[in-house]
């Protein structure tokens, strides 16, 4: 008798488990159609994890105010991989937030031409392919050296003026006194620092093509050598010099925020971590100084980061597309939308008409350089394995396993088989 009760219970549990599964499966879909009802529903895919809460809050308010149902989704998957599964199941998002390089690979098949939109003239960061604008820049992010002015003042005794750092020697003088933090992550080394070597050439395409066909020897390239000189300054004065390869970025950022070190290569996105500590407000970003006289020591490297595109497939109705375009315009031209980007999400806006002051000091630096037109654009076409493979090579250089000549050789070797993305 007891056994039978147990068996029935077990069966029930299994059935429930199955039912739960099928529920979970269907809840995600079913938001694509909705042409018949009077209320339009749009879906937004967010790939910026740190603003997911704000996005959801905003969606709720926007839905109430505009009568358009907005649902925000997030996935920790690789952006492209996640979107491909949504496209494979014919259930794409109305608006998707992706990285710049995804626009180049997805736009032709999946994105709506947004060239006729008002905001196009108010930004320099939109992505256009063959004259058609597909990508709506969500924010601006830039790379450079993050400094803690209070820590530097304490070490040198004088007020710190970031614009006074023009050469590698200037940086060295400060770095020796205040100490630096060096990134060890492959993406930071290869996708951000090494990429600056390409990006600071007038024509990165030609430079990379030159490395590929052997007409440019990386080891003899002036820019490469000068940038590596600057890197050596950071490396030599690294607080974790003996264990550079195991220094965690979070620890380095903590030390920078607390003033134990004064300089670190990074970007304004590092603020989300720096902000968690008892920081000094006197932080900012400055360009990576190098001894090539081309003005690059006065410019940060960066540009639009994260792009919205609107789905062009039959799964999205014209009404939905219209609502999606309205939403993008709301972000740029409505006070609430501007407030959302600048104040709620603490992002640096990519639009010249938005005049709200950026709150965080790193973002404020970026905005200053962006407004002055002193941003060297990102090179968005590096191969997908560039950051991992060249990052590993750069890590060896950081750990003193190889010297600069071997480093240049291995990077050249990498480029002998790699291909830049289509653009």
């Amino acid at each position, binding site marked *: 008798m007891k056994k039978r009760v147990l068996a029935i219970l077990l069966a029930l549990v299994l059935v429930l488990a199955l039912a739960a599964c099928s529920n979970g499966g269907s809840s995600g879909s079913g938001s694509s159609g909705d042409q018949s009802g009077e209320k339009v529903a749009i879906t937004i895919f967010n790939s910026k994890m740190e603003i997911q809460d704000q996005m959801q809050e905003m969606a709720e308010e926007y839905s109430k105010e505009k009568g358009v149902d907005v649902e925000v989704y997030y996935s920790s998957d690789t952006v492209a991989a996640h979107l491909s599964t949504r496209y494979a199941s014919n259930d794409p998002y109305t608006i998707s937030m992706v990285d710049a390089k995804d626009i180049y690979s*997805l736009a032709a098949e999946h994105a709506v031409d947004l060239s006729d939109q008002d905001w196009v003239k108010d930004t320099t960061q939109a992505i256009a392919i063959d004259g058609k604008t597909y990508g709506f820049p969500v924010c601006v992010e830039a790379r450079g050296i993050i400094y803690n002015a209070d820590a530097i003042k304490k070490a040198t005794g004088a007020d710190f003026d970031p614009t006074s750092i023009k050469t590698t020697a200037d940086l060295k003088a400060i770095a020796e006194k205040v100490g630096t933090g060096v990134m060890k992550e*492959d993406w930071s080394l290869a996708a951000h620092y090494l990429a600056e070597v390409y990006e600071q050439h007038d024509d990165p395409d030609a430079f990379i093509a030159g490395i590929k066909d052997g007409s440019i020897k990386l080891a003899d390239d002036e820019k490469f050598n000068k940038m590596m000189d600057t890197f050596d300054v950071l490396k030599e004065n690294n607080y974790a010099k003996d*264990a550079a390869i195991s220094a965690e970025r979070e620890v380095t950022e903590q030390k920078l925020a607390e003033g134990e070190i004064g300089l670190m290569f990074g970007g304004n996105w590092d603020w989300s971590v720096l902000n968690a500590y008892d920081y000094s407000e006197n932080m900012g970003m400055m360009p990576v100084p190098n001894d090539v006289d081309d003005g690059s020591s006065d410019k940060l490297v960066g540009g639009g980061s994260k792009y919205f595109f609107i789905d062009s497939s039959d799964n999205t109705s014209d009404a939905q597309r219209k609502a999606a375009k309205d939403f993008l315009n709301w972000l740029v031209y409505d006070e609430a939308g501007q407030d959302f980007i600048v104040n709620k999400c603490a992002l640096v806006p990519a639009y010249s008409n938005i005049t709200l002051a950026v709150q965080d000091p790193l973002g404020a630096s970026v905005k200053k350089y962006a407004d002055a037109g002193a941003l060297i654009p990102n090179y968005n076409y590096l191969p*997908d*394995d560039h950051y991992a493979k060249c990052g*590993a090579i750069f890590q060896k250089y950081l*750990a003193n396993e190889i010297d600069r000549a071997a480093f240049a050789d291995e990077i050249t070797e990498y480029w002998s088989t790699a291909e830049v993305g289509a653009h």
Partner: protein
Amino acid sequence: MKQNKLSYKIEQYLMFAGPGTALFLAVVIVPFVYGLYLTMTSWDGVSATKPFVWFENFAAAFSDGDYWAAMGRTVIYSIFAVVLINVVSFALAYLVTRGIKGQNFFRAGFFVPNLIGGIVLGYVWKFVFNRAFVAIFSSTSLLSTTEGAMFCLILVSVWQYAGYMMLIYVAGFMSVSKDVEEASRIDGCTSSQAMKNVTIPLMRSSFVQCIFLSITRCFVVYDVNLSLTNGEPFKSSTMAAMHVYNQAFTYKNYGLGQSEAVILFAVCAIVGVTQVLIGKRGEVEA
């Protein structure tokens, strides 16, 4: 109703094994066959078109130096980890079946690491290696050297799986009847002789099972690898499974990654099946 009619048999099969078969087909066989198809395409994982290229991916996989380096590393890691896991778990099982005080508590304690997911476990140990040990011994982190990272991976895997395998060995110890051991003692065996000649041979199936499980798990290790070292320093601790993932999803060579996964599967299956066949040969049915 005749019970040996085909329709009756099919009906009975569908009734009892039908749901299981359907699920198995849906979540194992179909993805596997589809995966085999993908090995013959140069799909990038995103695009709508999947160009068919026959066996080009396998040719590329065989000439992918990074892949075979990762594979070699996986084999070395597996050899160390499998031996250590089984030695440690057997010793633990022996200790907790001797009737010592609080042995149930110890059993539970040794098993706990297995309840923590590999990702969490990797981050916990990363903290231990990178901060705690560095602070205590004021040395550089073990994770910053090539050999050190490998050592850490093996250590954490042993710690993770030893408790689980211990349970199987405990079951093995319990299944060996006291009678035969006592009989051997009466015949003049010392306790170590009794262990070697009576208990261990009777526990052979436990060994076969534990070694099989540890081999297959070590060959496809991913979670600990990801959270503990993430392939660092300089990609020198990337295991085969991690390389496959990177190839397919990060470098966007889905077809190539898929064919490398199939090769990994084949290697893993050959090693596992060979081991089971050899192990089963001398098994004592008691």
